[in-house]
């Protein structure tokens, strides 16, 4: 059976129907964007940092096999077990085997988008491993049975009463608790005993450093450091593209990451793991899952520069007003819309159309990914691969014909005045015109620009030219 494309527009419509959630979501993300701008303006070298970050990443991607080999050699020298996973299934199998070898039954973990990609919890739970997300937002999403709706703030689409209800059900707290402070304290109190008795810990990671065999984890809540240091077994999962050549390159990326993400100068914790702690065991799983194939896509390989800051999501008017869950994918927002189709072209064929093409995502990207251009290029690819829904395809087809013939186009445009002012609403506003769903069509004009130009300027021009002659 063919997989159905995600109906982003329909899911977004449901999101739009809920005014309090919509308003908070929109304003909260825009606030993050504004805080990012304030940080940017404090650094005269901001644009140079972006250029450097982009150049370092492009260089690293062009030399990825060598840097991964260098990383592996150094990490092994430091006593880290290095594993390679071609896809999500292999990743999950590797993690499962490590846990089984240790007889581990309780895994505490910090947020990791790669483990979401691999759908790891669904693999481990039936095998008798209790997986506890320790990041507050991620835990809320786990308890609610939802994917993270944002790569940095996973539960940003929820309000205080939503969290109170979820915690009441799972932690036996007051369902009417309206204080974020006391809810966060409930999470701390519920998580601490689980952390102290867990037999294994897991983190994601933001960067791999080839020169030293280090991986770097940037977080705020302290849960990643607890997950990594309390149990004696630490497994880290990272995508193969997260590598930089030298430790000295980290300066560029740390200065950009949290400023771009949350508008704070740095995350509360920036942790460098170079080897196992005393008495401990450390594993790292390097995950491909489509990345090596993406490197060969001439128009899309630079999406691998992404450092997962979420700035493109915060600035995107479509994302802010549709919510991350409406994308139906692990990665949402503009960056999601250009990488999701590489995972499943048909399923995510609708996502590159979830954009106004305003280019804001490209402007805020700390590693200068041309996101909006890639959105456009994906649309072209999807048309070529016939992954466009019927109405969109037919309308584009008609528009193409119309715009390709000036006389026909002008006749049609002149006709719209009559059409817009005389046709009944049901003809103008129906399923063939999704544009008119939440908007009014423009007021008809008395005269098109072309007709006006012909009557005035063109006439004057002819007259003045005639005068000269």
């Amino acid at each position, binding site marked *: 059976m063919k997989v159905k494309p995600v109906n982003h527009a329909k899911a977004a419509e449901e999101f739009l129907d809920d005014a309090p959630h919509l308003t908070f979501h929109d304003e909260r993300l825009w606030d993050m964007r504004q805080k990012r701008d304030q940080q940017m303006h404090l650094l005269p070298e901001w644009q140079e940092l972006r250029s450097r970050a982009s150049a370092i990443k492009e260089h690293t991607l062009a030399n990825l096999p060598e840097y991964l080999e260098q990383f592996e050699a150094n990490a092994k020298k430091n006593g880290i077990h290095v594993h390679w996973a071609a896809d999500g299934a292999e990743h999950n199998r590797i993690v499962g085997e490590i846990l089984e070898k240790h007889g581990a039954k309780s895994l505490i973990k910090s947020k990791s988008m790669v483990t979401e990609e691999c759908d790891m919890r669904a693999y481990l739970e039936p095998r008798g491993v209790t997986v506890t997300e320790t990041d507050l937002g991620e835990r809320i999403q786990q308890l609610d049975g939802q994917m993270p709706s944002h790569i940095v703030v996973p539960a940003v689409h929820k309000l205080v009463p939503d969290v109170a209800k979820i915690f009441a059900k799972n932690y036996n707290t007051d369902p009417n608790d309206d204080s974020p402070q006391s809810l966060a304290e409930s999470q701390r109190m519920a998580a601490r005993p689980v952390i102290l008795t867990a037999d294994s810990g897991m983190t994601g990671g933001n960067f791999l450093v080839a020169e030293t065999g280090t991986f770097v984890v940037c977080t705020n*809540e302290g849960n990643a450091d607890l997950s990594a240091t309390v149990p004696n077994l630490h497994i880290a999962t990272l995508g193969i593209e997260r590598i930089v050549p030298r430790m000295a390159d980290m300066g560029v990326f740390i200065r950009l990451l949290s400023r771009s993400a949350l508008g704070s100068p*740095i*995350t509360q914790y920036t*942790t460098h793991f170079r080897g196992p*702690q005393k008495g401990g065991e450390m594993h790292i799983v390097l995950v491909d899952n489509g990345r090596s194939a993406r490197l060969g896509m001439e128009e899309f390989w630079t999406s691998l520069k992404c450092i997962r800051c979420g700035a493109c999501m915060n600035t995107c008017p479509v994302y802010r007003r549709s919510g991350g869950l409406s994308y139906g994918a692990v990665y949402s927002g503009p960056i999601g819309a250009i990488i999701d189709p590489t995972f499943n072209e048909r399923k995510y064929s609708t996502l590159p159309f979830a954009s106004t093409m305003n280019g804001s995502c490209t402007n805020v990207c700390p590693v200068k990914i041309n996101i909006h251009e890639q959105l456009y290029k994906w649309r072209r690819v999807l048309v070529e691969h016939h992954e466009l829904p019927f109405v969109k395809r037919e309308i584009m087809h008609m528009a193409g014909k119309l715009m390709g013939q000036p006389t026909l186009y002008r006749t049609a445009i002149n006709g719209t005045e009559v059409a817009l002012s005389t046709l009944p609403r049901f003809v103008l506003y129906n399923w063939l015109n999704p544009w008119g769903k939440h908007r009014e069509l423009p007021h008809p004009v008395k005269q098109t620009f072309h007709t006006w130009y012909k009557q005035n300027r063109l006439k004057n021009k002819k007259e003045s030219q005639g005068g000269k002659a």
Partner: protein
Amino acid sequence: MSSRDTILATLRANRPDPAAHELPPVAVLGDMDAGKARFEDALQLLGGQILLPQEGDTLATAIARRFPDAKIICSAVPDFEGTIRLEDVTSPQQAAATDVLVVRSPFGISEMGSIFLSEAQLNSLNSAAHLTQHIVVILSEKNLTANMHTAYVERPEFHTANYGVLMTGPSATADIQGVLIRGAQGVRSLSVWWE
């Protein structure tokens, strides 16, 4: 072929031309002020505090005043007593009872207000820095470096420590309706004591 070899072979076949993407030289950019005032401003922006001595104060009296209810004060430094020494704490479960941990950081970063800790300062019980309710960090002004670039270029710890954490203020979250809460899952407060 192993997944490792398959991945590396695919990358070799698919990568863009390495000659077209040179590695830029190491960047050392930005404000080079390695001062105490810049550090303090940055630290306070991220919710950290300065433990200020009053007339005749020692670290012990300053801690007693700042944390009047603390029962277990754990010391990881030779020049401060506390109620227990970190060498005598043998497990994370025992470390979890700590109210205040006192450590010495080898360096701080003025740009961010960050302090560095590794297994060398934590007697290899790294979790102690995160299980304690509060942390007091002894830092010397002469060990400040200007910014992230200078820190990564100058500090040898990034090449030697197995576990190296830059802590900037206490743990924090804004995951519930965007409300910023200091004291999430790690330390509830982080205070710097100048020596």
